């Protein structure tokens, strides 16, 4: 036996073996189902696998089969209506007589006209003014029997009767029907014949069971070889949300770079979210269409409020001109959903003492904008925030930190360009070069906090590098989405299967 045949034989599943062993010349799928006792889908699959191994070939066939209809079955059982009528026509009767009492003539009323017509065509009867006569041919017919009845019998047995008679029967209502049946014709290839011949010589074990191990039943036997390339059913494993995985990746980067994590409330008052960051109280970003406001108020820290208010009014101790507008406490106390994570930086700065400088802080947290939800806008999204508080902090270091971060996020090239935020000066827009898009993409804002921000919060002017970066524009192309909403659709199938965020 050649190695190939043995190899194939070892790989046969028990169903394949079963089907193969029943093969002899040309077989129909339907007959293999009955001969193997397997389910149709099992036989089908076995034929497919055997085909893949080159042991069988098969083709689709359409079987035509004649079967008896309702009236055909009745005629087979009781005889053709014209035969039954002929048998009752001993004496001369008029059509009227038969019509008025059909049961006497062993016939249904609706069969009558057809039966008379059929008998006349066969010249078994003659009609005159007095009634119906049975001819000699008719008597002969009664003795010999009707060809149509033979045909019905043949159809019943699954055989095909004489074509002319069959056509006649087909024209009669509910006598014979043509059924089309899809099936598959299967035959052995030369290789298949060889393998079949060896089936009995190579027996294989299926699963290795505890019983086989215990009793040593595996000794001296061969195990069936699996098709190790076959695709197997999927595992539904537990999984963190891919956005969470991305965030954890980002958090790790900042922790590695020596940053301490900040956390804090989502609902903030305007003082911390805007005023403390030198956003004037009439700034367009504060308008209803940009910021979500919630009911209620929250107290502002009184000493700091006064200082920040002075800075807005005339610069206070900062040497700035200010906005020419003191703070309106009502506006400052109003609650909103934080519009940027920079609010956490402001709060953190206000809590630092001299021993905390130098310090580096970060957060990845949710922020809110009053946007209409569409493919490129979410009203709630994550921002990557960082601050570096140090006497020696400068613009070059800002570029350095941003480069380090984005390098770890998979972007080798970054650029900054001028931008404007009320709380930073210089202000920059951060761009990275996307290899996928072959273009620069804007990922967020950064800068150095203005003295108007740092002096009230820290008590003196210390340079504070700051950034608020987006994750959406990194995640969308990475995960192959086109719509920002896809990040939060919570389609369980996607959550189960989507790749992890990895930039190694």
């Amino acid at each position, binding site marked *: 036996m050649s190695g190939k045949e043995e190899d194939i034989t070892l790989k046969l599943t028990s169903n394949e073996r079963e089907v193969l062993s029943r093969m002899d010349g040309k077989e129909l799928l339907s007959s293999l189902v009955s001969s193997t006792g397997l389910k149709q889908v099992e036989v089908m699959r076995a034929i497919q696998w055997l085909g893949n191994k080159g042991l069988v070939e098969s083709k689709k066939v359409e079987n035509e089969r004649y079967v008896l209809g309702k009236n055909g079955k009745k005629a087979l059982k009781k005889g053709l209506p014209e035969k039954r009528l002929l048998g009752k026509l001993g004496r001369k009767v008029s059509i009227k007589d038969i019509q008025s009492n059909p049961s006497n003539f062993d016939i249904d009323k609706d069969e009558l006209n057809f039966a008379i017509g059929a008998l006349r065509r066969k010249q078994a009867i003659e009609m005159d003014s007095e009634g119906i006569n049975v001819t000699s041919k008719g008597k002969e017919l009664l003795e010999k029997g009707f060809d149509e009845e033979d045909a019905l019998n043949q159809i019943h047995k699954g055989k095909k009767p004489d074509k002319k008679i069959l056509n006649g029967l087909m024209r009669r209502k509910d006598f014979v029907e043509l059924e089309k049946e899809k099936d598959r014709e299967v035959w052995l290839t030369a290789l298949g014949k060889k393998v079949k011949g060896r089936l009995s010589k190579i027996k294989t074990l299926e699963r290795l069971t505890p019983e086989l191990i215990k009793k040593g039943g595996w000794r001296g036997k061969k195990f069936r070889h699996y098709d190790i390339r076959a695709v197997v059913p999927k595992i539904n494993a*537990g999984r963190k949300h891919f956005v969470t995985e991305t965030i954890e990746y980002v958090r790790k980067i900042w922790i590695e770079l020596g940053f301490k994590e900040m956390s804090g409330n989502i*609902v903030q008052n305007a003082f911390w979210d805007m005023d403390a960051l030198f956003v004037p109280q009439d700034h367009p970003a504060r308008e209803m269409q940009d910021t979500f406001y919630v009911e209620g108020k929250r107290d502002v820290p009184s000493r700091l409020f006064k200082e920040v208010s002075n800075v807005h009014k005339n610069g206070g101790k900062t040497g700035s001109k200010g906005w020419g507008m003191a703070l309106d406490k009502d506006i400052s106390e109003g609650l909103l959903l934080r519009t940027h994570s920079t609010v956490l930086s402001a709060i953190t700065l206000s809590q630092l003492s001299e021993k905390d400088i130098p310090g580096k802080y970060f*957060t990845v947290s949710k922020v809110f904008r009053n946007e209409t939800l569409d493919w490129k806008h979410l*009203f709630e999204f994550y921002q990557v925030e960082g601050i570096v508080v140090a006497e020696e902090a400068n613009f070059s270091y800002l570029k350095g930190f941003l480069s380090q971060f984005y390098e770890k996020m998979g972007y080798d090239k970054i650029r900054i360009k*001028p931008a404007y935020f009320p709380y930073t000066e210089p202000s920059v827009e951060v761009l990275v070069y996307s290899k996928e898009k072959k273009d620069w993409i804007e990922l967020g804002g950064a800068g*150095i906090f203005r003295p108007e921000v740092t002096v009230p919060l820290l008590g003196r002017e210390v340079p504070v590098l700051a950034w608020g970066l987006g994750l959406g524009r990194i995640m969308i192309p990475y995960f192959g989405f086109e719509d920002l909403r896809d990040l939060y659709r919570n389609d369980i199938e996607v959550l189960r299967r989507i790749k992890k965020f990895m930039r190694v």
Partner: protein
Amino acid sequence: MPSVEIEKEQLYGLIGERIKEDKLAELLGSLGVELESSSTKEFVIEVFPNRPDFLSAYGIARGLRYLIGKDRKIKQYRVADDKGYRVIVDKSVKDVRPYTACCIAKGLKLDDAKIKELIRIQEKLHITFGRKRKKMAIGIYPLEHIKLPISFKADKPENIRFRPLESTREMNGKELLKKHPAGKEYGYLLEGKKRFPYFEDADGNVLSIPPIVNSHDTGKINENTKEVFIECSGFDIEYLKRGLNIISCALLDMGAKIYPMELRYDDFKIKTPSLEEEGMDIDEDYVFRIIGKKVDIAKALLHMGIRYEKGIAYIPPYRADILHPIDIVEDVAIGYGYDNVPSKMPSIYTKGEEDKKIAFLNKVGEVLVGAGFIEVKSFSLISNEDAKRFGLKAVKILNPSNKDYNVLRPSLIPCIMKVFYNNKSREFPQRIFEIGKVFPSEEARLCIGISSRDADFTRIKQVLQLLQEQLDRKFDVEELSKDYFIEGRAGKVMDGKEEIGEIGELHPSLIEHYELEMPVVLMEMKVKKTSNNKTNITKKGKTFI
């Protein structure tokens, strides 16, 4: 961000050079504006709100000429000799619109393009710098119909009569607010005021009611206009002076002469505009320290159109954004080129540290992932209906833009149910969890849901037990009756004496509501790092936290 549309030919003409579009985009970027789009005839340029002087073709061209070194000397903007023009400000305006800053421009050769430009500057400044006319409104009037001196007064609206722009008839101030389109749009700025402000000439003709609309007879400029009166009105004289400077400089660039006007207030008088550059002392070390490099300040600032001599930066009159020397530092950095600033890392040591609460929540997530659960992430905003369905009161968003998201979630249960609803056609069993904040407490909660043929109380309580083991906690469950749980199959989760959550089989009426066909069991609980229970069941196998 505001944007301006500028005709390409006009811009190239003003720059005095045709610049390739990709190069132009690059240059505009380094100027701090952005080329948003480009059609065959026009550029659309986005301008940051701190640079209203860039809201015109003249402003952009001015910036570009300095940047590319076309202008190597700083242009001095000067007013013409004082001709004794006056505006008398009556004290009656104090309560409505107390201040104005004005000037007269002559020698204008207004063609269509220039009229368009002037109106565009006015409109753009209204929207941005003027905060939709609230903070500053600008009026421009042809001088030929006006008899000087001009007065700025306030009176009862019904006493102020004039024919507003593009109107066929005279109206008084009251009618103006109701009937004129500008009155309808900006009327709210005067609503409730007993007196309306207005400008009037020496003949008693009303010129305008600011910030609403000009008179049709004395306040409409056309191509024959050669001299104009310009006023800015508002609440902060310093702010108005800055606004007036931006317009004056644009007019000077257009070839006009600007004549100052004396504004006679009740208790003081000033002359506007003053186009003198303001000197700002600059500490060079401060600049170098912030940028992180010694640079040639004078050279960098020249590219930004700022003269720098002997430690003083002379701020051009159109720059309304320089509040502090730090703003000059930024201009130095931009003029030097952001790309030219080296990228460096400091050597100072700081300790990296994750937030302990967040770290704990991540551990909780790990326990659930290990148990085969999928994490979902929902928005913090839900619909009030969803909150009410579970008998919850929620903090309302005052200005929601979508009724599906009009309250802050008081619980994660509605979020989890929405996920089940959206995943009806997905494979079962579905085992999901979410960790997130609820409001107003902002406490972190964990919500777990199982939807499957065999989802029952046992399945969900198994998870609670697993958490108990791996988090080294002791939780108790006490009976609970809630409409949305099946009676007798729901409990309170207790951490010592504190109720921290609930657990149970969802009532079929809710399953039906969410159009689900499988049973659902839920558990929601507060997750915090510290436990109330002193007798934790410390044992082998817990998570290292």
